[in-house]
């Protein structure tokens, strides 16, 4: 299990802490148990006290190189080894490496007679020897209360326990003391009177046939801590407390963007997709393609080489992969490569808290980049809406802290308002995509809007959403006179628009033709006019020539007449009269 790094905030505030190495507990307590002081872990039988204490020692030994002493009052070392062996704790190996010392303290009442004064120095000596022999930094007393059953003198016992806890403090070891829960009080024998630094309570409750283990920090002197009850799991690796509502809202906010797996959707989200580490809600009525959208996202992440965790609460792995294959997404290779992990379970399998813890645990071990919860709506069948919301809030917090991008799908009831999620969690979401189906002309068509997307300029347009055999396609919708048109109405509209274009083009062509014809007519008219002009010009020329000839003839006639009369020398001809002919100035 990966270790967490903690900022030394609590150390700065003056209280050194001893990390337990148990998932979640260190988060709740802001770094661990009070270092060098005793912590009381109380709870009813079977709630996991011994396990928590043992895990504290084992993690201390393996993760922090702090040897530990387990003083068992109820189980022998062999029994203990066997019991925790199923959780992967190899006690004999740790004991051999001197990282663990198990001492079984058995006090049998029937063997004991009490006469006069005594103290528990024997216990101190044993504990002291155990601590010194391996240089222990951590000690567990499980369950010191059984001494109350074995030793009759309460006064001595109480005084000695008080001395014991003081002595342990002086030794500087961090101690867990387990105690049975009493009726109406924390512990049956009021051990909380002696251990005042830190008290944890474990609880195992059954509500509506569903059992949930919970942990609560009742008291932590000198330190802030989460005060809620936190669910925890006991599974094959021990106790796991879900990292719950963070004490502060300090998630990292990434500016990195990751693709949605659908390029046109990326475009709608400011051109580059979701923010890494953000939460995405895809809501819609049944059959609008929520899972397909999720599958696209997962596929894109796997292509980038990231790890994805897919929580399926409605379909099995095989069903999902088969269905996605039909739209051209082959998810199985990613599963085989280990990049994609499916966790399919019915929400009714366990309580909300158990789901939360189980999911948290899977997320912690698989360390995904992308998580899909499909769908979250089904949780309402196991819990109240308020509980579901609180669970999701905690999950969102945990995911955001780890910079995991999460996509939730949510089924919207057909009759309600679309912009309403059944569990009312939209405020937790950074990006909200709404898938709707519209009925028009006797068919249902899908549409997609971006209702919100924090921190990016996103499209306000509705897109028609097609599920084809090669994946999801987004297309522009047509806006008809009656509003948005999708499906065959869109096709009809497109055809109609195309016809209109053709018609307009024809009109234009016709007009041009007319114009050309007019031009031709004009030319023809010009030709006629010119012909007329030429004819006139010819006539003018003819008349001029005629005139000249006549003048010449006149002169000739005059000369002849003169000769006939034998008159004086005729006046000399100065030359031909200058006459303009054709083409001259008009």
């Amino acid at each position, binding site marked *: 299990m990966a270790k967490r790094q903690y900022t030394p905030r609590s150390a700065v505030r003056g209280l050194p802490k001893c990390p337990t190495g148990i998932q979640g507990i260190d988060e709740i307590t802001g770094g661990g148990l009070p270092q060098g002081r005793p912590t009381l872990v109380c709870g009813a039988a079977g709630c996991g006290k011994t396990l928590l204490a043992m895990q504290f020692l084992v993690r201390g030994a393996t993760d922090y190189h702090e040897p530990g002493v387990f003083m068992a009052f109820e189980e022998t070392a062999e029994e203990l080894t066997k019991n925790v062996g199923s959780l992967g704790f190899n006690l004999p190996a740790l004991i051999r490496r001197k990282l663990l010392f198990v*001492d079984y*303290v*058995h*006090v*049998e009442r029937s*063997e*004991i*007679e*009490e*006469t*006069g*004064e*005594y*103290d*528990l*120095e*024997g*216990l101190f*000596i*044993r504990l*002291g*020897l155990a601590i010194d022999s391996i240089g222990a930094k951590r000690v567990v007393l499980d369950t010191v209360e059984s*001494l109350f059953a*074995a*030793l009759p003198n309460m006064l001595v016992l109480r005084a000695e326990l008080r001395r014991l806890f003081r002595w342990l403090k002086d030794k500087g070891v961090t101690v867990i003391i387990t105690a049975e829960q009493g009726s109406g009080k924390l512990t049956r024998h009021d051990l909380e009177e002696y251990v005042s630094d830190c008290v944890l309570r474990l609880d195992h409750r059954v509500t509506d046939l569903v059992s949930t283990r919970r942990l609560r920090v009742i008291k932590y002197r000198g330190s802030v801590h989460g005060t809620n009850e936190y669910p925890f799991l006991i599974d094959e690796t021990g106790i796991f407390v879900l990292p719950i509502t963070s004490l502060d809202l300090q998630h990292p906010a990434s500016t990195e963007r990751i693709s949605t797996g659908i390029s046109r959707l990326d475009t709608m989200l400011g051109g580059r997709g979701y923010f890494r580490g953000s939460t995405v809600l895809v809501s819609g009525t049944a059959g609008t393609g929520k899972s397909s959208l999720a599958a696209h996202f997962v596929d894109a992440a796997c292509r980038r080489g990231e790890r994805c965790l897919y929580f399926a609460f409605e379909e099995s792995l095989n069903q999902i992969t088969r269905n996605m294959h039909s739209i051209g997404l082959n998810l199985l290779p990613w599963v085989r490569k280990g990049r994609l992990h499916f966790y399919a379970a019915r929400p009714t399998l366990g309580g909300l808290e158990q789901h939360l813890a189980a999911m948290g645990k899977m997320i912690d071990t698989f360390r995904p980049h992308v998580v899909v919860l499909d769908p979250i709506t089904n949780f309402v069948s196991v819990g109240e809406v308020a509980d579901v919301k609180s669970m999701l809030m905690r999950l969102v917090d945990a995911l955001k802290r780890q910079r995991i991008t999460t996509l939730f799908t949510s089924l919207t009831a057909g009759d309600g308002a679309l912009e309403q999620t059944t569990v009312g969690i939209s405020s937790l979401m950074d990006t909200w995509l709404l898938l709707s189906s519209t009925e028009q002309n006797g068919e249902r068509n899908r549409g997609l809007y971006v209702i919100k997307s924090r921190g990016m300029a996103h499209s306000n347009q509705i897109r028609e959403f097609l599920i084809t055999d090669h994946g999801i396609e987004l297309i522009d919708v047509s806006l008809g006179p009656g509003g948005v048109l999708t499906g065959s109405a869109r096709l009809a509209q497109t055809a109609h628009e195309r016809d209109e274009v053709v018609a307009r083009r024809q009109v234009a062509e016709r007009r041009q033709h007319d114009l050309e014809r007019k031009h031709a007519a004009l030319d023809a008219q010009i030709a006629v006019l010119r012909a007329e002009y030429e004819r006139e010009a010819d006539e003018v020329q003819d008349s001029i020539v005629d005139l000249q000839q006549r003048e010449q003839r006149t002169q000739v006639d005059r000369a002849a007449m003169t000769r006939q009369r034998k008159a004086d020398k005729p006046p000399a001809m100065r030359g031909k009269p200058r006459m303009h002919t054709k083409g001259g100035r008009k």
Partner: protein
Amino acid sequence: MSMPRRRVSTSAPRSGRRSAGSAERWELRLYVAGQTPRSLAAFANLKQICESHLAGKYHIEVIDLVKNPQLARGDQIVAIPTLVRRLPPPLKKIIGDLSNTERVLVGLQLRARQ
């Protein structure tokens, strides 16, 4: 009075094996932690009781856990002082400074519980 170091047989050689009643031997261990007044008192009380009731057939081993802390595990010692009757069986433990002779005798089963 000082306490014997570790292993002291106080059985008198003359009373030896021919002691009255039975041949049973009493093996007693007294666990103490350092020479505290309580330890010393316990040892003195024990010795006195043994002398008066088990003369010649008892053997007391005093174990100081301050010196030999590892020995506390074997007999499951928690309280100090603890007297362990190892023989005869069954194993019995008496805790305290053994100041109440009556109860010690009951605890050692030398006297029936009243």
